[in-house]
């Protein structure tokens, strides 16, 4: 379904605060995009404390650490999870990777660029915080998705991240996901308020990618190390993720093939 192309859309997913569901969102969004027929690469950008492989229940023997330290071709460490979904796993418990310097980050993205040209979409699940690797991956990306929850700490950290990206790195057009909400109204209120603050202080107009409802099926899926899209394909969170994937799919100008129908 895909013609030859150069650098595909790179979606960087960050949150500022940890524990807001970033990796779970990334894994399930990537799964939904692959289901729609987009050849998708999910890069675990939490280079020193990677979790994408854990959430997916993968047993990985090679990680991006080998690419950084040995110059190993990232294609050799890439794992095919399912049709059209590939993962580049990160190491876990490697402070040197978490604190990768600018030269290392530049080398890594340079090594990744030939590989990503073989994909329709690239997702980067960054670390929490506003460390160098988070900022670097966000600079590299063509779109910046920020996940928030309606908690003061998440709002503060997410805003701080966007402030740094907008002020120092000239990033614009943040797409916001409001996670762990009790209702669509709560998500809408959270988005509206954040948009107002971004507009007032940063002259920034974010877009709303959508809400992710609080859903017990999500917790169950995480504990069984499966995407909730597979474990509970009809749960509210799965439906919300598919809606967001549909928006991204359309934004990227992709077209689903006849063999890619929604499972619902």
């Amino acid at each position, binding site marked *: 379904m895909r013609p030859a192309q150069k*650098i595909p859309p*790179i979606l960087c997913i960050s949150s500022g605060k940890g524990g807001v569901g970033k990796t779970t969102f990334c894994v399930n969004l990537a799964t939904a995009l692959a289901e729609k027929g987009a050849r998708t690469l999910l890069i675990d950008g939490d280079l020193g404390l990677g979790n994408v492989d854990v959430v997916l229940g993968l047993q990985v023997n090679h990680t991006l650490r080998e690419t950084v330290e040995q110059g190993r071709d990232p294609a050799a460490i890439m794992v095919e999870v399912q049709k059209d979904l590939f993962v580049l796993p990160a190491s876990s418990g490697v402070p040197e990777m978490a604190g990768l310097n*600018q030269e290392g980050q*530049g080398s890594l*993205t*340079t090594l990744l*660029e030939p590989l990503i040209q073989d994909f329709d979409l690239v997702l980067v699940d960054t670390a929490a915080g506003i460390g160098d690797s988070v900022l*670097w991956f966000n*600079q*590299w*990306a*063509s779109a910046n998705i920020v996940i928030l929850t*309606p908690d*003061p700490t998440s*709002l*503060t950290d997410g*805003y*701080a991240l966007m*402030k*740094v990206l907008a*002020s*120092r*790195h*000239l990033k614009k057009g943040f797409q916001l996901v409001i996670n762990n909400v009790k209702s669509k109204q709560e998500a809408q*209120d*959270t988005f*509206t*308020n*954040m948009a*107002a*603050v971004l507009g*007032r*202080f940063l002259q920034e107009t974010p877009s709303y990618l959508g809400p992710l409802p609080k859903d017990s099926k999500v917790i169950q899926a995480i504990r069984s190390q499966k995407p909730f899209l597979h474990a509970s394909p009809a749960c509210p969170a799965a439906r919300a993720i598919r809606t967001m994937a549909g928006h991204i799919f359309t934004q990227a100008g992709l077209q689903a093939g006849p063999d890619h129908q929604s499972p619902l």
Partner: protein
Amino acid sequence: MATLPPLFLEATLHGAEKHGIETHSLAGNQGLLLFAEGITPSEQYTLLKKIIADLQPADPTSPVPQAEEMEKTVSTAATQTMDCQVSVEERAQLFKFLTG
């Protein structure tokens, strides 16, 4: 960086390419960011001085900034880091809707 005028950015990008600086690697047309992150501030300053020297307008009415003006901007951009501390007012606005 955010204060650099578009004309200056454009001129600098052209100059950077002329001096062999890669500007195409970052998605989203953020070429100057790659340039600024890839070398030390002192190297940046030295190289930009060379670039500026090449940008002296032949026509004094040209909109290209004068070298002294550009050099001042470069010096400021290379040595200052924007303070992004979230203010008390910003926080208050962020939490405003939570308390009704």
